[in-house]
């Protein structure tokens, strides 16, 4: 996230570990952002297809355009800005819902926003985005996140993990359907480590589990966040005067 790692980025092999790209993996990406400068910047950062493995197949500046471009190009990952003219990223997610659930060739969304306010983050995650990163992210990390999302995993920033922990914090009141709403002890542990700034790999080492297990825990959290019942989320939102 820092500029320091950003500066050291080009010297490292791009997309190490889970990142991919150099090993021949390819991912087709659509950029949705209303600022042309930003799209150009992201394009320059991740668009060198032969190095990063990311191919930008389309761009859009508002909700209508985004839906059209996504439907026609059928990318694997959409980098979605949260604040967009015409209803915001949540509206794009709503209208592209059928594409997300497509079993053959699902479109996955990674929210990319300058805002890390809780309402924005939770809004798009509940809308179906598979991850949320802020615009201060470095190119390397972004490429890494894109591949992770493409594989169906969730990308959590420490901050997002903090929000989720916060949302599920009140364990004393028993929710109606427990297995759906409660985070398991392990998931909570994983989230806590993410919030403390650990990478998935480091979490795996720390907890003596495999990276795949960490990823599946995170995916489970994401699923629970999307499905968690009104009870808890309403209370959470009310406590923060979001509704």
């Amino acid at each position: 996230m820092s500029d320091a790692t950003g500066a050291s980025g080009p010297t490292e092999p791009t997309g190490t570990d889970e990142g991919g790209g150099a090993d021949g993996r390819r991912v087709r990406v659509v950029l949705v952002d209303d600022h042309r400068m930003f799209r150009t910047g992201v394009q320059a950062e991740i668009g060198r297809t032969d190095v990063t493995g990311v191919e930008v197949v389309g761009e859009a500046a508002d909700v209508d355009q985004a839906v059209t471009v996504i439907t026609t190009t059928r990318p694997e990952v959409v980098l979605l800005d949260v604040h967009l003219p015409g209803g915001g990223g949540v509206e794009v997610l709503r209208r592209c819902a059928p594409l997300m659930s497509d079993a053959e060739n699902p479109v996955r969304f990674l929210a990319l926003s300058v805002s890390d306010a809780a309402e924005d983050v939770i809004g798009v995650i509940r809308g179906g985005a598979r991850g949320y990163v802020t615009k201060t992210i470095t190119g390397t990390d972004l490429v890494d996140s894109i591949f992770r999302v493409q594989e169906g995993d969730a990308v959590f920033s420490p901050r997002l993990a903090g929000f989720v922990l916060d949302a599920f914090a009140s364990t004393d009141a028993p929710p109606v359907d427990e297995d759906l709403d409660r985070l398991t002890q392990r998931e909570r542990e994983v989230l806590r480590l993410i919030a403390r700034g650990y990478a998935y790999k480091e979490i795996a080492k720390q907890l003596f589990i495999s990276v795949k297990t960490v990823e599946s825990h995170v995916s489970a959290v994401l699923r629970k966040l999307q499905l968690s019942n009104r009870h808890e989320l309403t209370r959470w939102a009310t406590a923060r005067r979001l509704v």
Partner: protein
Amino acid sequence: MPEAAAPPIDDVRPLRKLYRSGDGRWLGGVARGLAGHLGLPVIWVRLIFVGLFTADGLGGLLYAAFWFFVPLGVGGVDAQRPPAAVTAETAPDGRRRLVARKPDKGQLVALLAMVVVAMVFVGNVDLDGSTKAYVVPTLLVAAGVALVWRQADNARRARWMAVGRRRRTLTIARSAAGVLLVGAGVSGIFVLQGSAAHLGAVLQASLAVLVGVALLAGPYLVRMMQDLSEERLMRIRAQERAEVAAHVHDSVLHTLTLIQRNAESASEVRRLARAQERDLRAWLYKPEGTGKDEDEEPDTLAEAVRRSAAEVEDKHGVPIEVVVVGDCPLDERLTAQMQAAREAMVNAAKYGGEGGAVQVFAEVEGETVFVSVRDRGPGFDLDSVPDDRMGVRESIIGRMQRNGGTARLRAVPGGGTEVELEMERTATT
């Protein structure tokens, strides 16, 4: 007398402008306002008015004159009243504003008293028969005018307090009643003057004139109102823009200038940019009223953590990412923990900063508060630190133990150091 005394006072002390009192008034708030202005008890002023009223109605005339010319405001009698009932605050533009008000209980009493006084007055004044007949219509007109004028005051007050909507029907009813009263009074006078036979024709004629005037002036008035509201909207927008521009000018442009001057020093540029980003973010996304009073001491854990992180970040130019889960008020132990955490942040920024952002995580879980500060620097071994270096040993570990908490330092698998601080909250809450 009050009328003669008021203007000089205004001249001598321009700051104390005479206002009619908006709250606790009985009729127009003149007596209250005057009392506040002159520093007299309200009841005296009222008695003086009543007394003057008996002197050929001079009091009534004076009252009407004050009502007409003196703007409605908050009278200076607030100090004498219990502040719980009505509070007044001064708006940024210097206008005084009403926050809450007492229901106008006195109004009914005042009206009854007025009627009684008027009756006595009418009974006492000796007029010949033909003049006497005019008294009732005149009183009717006066009552109608009073009603409508008070209405105007209320509308003005409603604008300040933004409660106008739900009283709309009442407003209309009152205006209608006032108009009816005035109409009846005027008609009465007319009937007395001429003969009742002509009344119908004259009413028709005046109605025609009224309709004509409405037709001519109506569209113009509507257009004017629309223009007015549009203009107001534009002004609000312009103000908003000016405020944004002022903020951007003060902070962003200033920072950009500094960045230009320090362009060769990457760490300085980064520090400035991050400080600016945090500032703007706080300004843009935080709800109104928070983060404005920067100098106040934080009183919750989340605030304290963020504040410390921001300060260390500014000072050392190393980005610090803060995640806080839950929140609780600060107590003595937590304050000690915050100091330890701050020390840990400073260490992380100093020795581990080149590895990237320092990550701070704070969590309140039940009675336990956990803080983790981690960097991705080279890491260090506590045992290899000389005994005379007290930073970690005293400021972090020692401080935590003295206050009943624990501190752990450990190497992180991926490189770097993590400081974990755990503290039980004081069990008073």
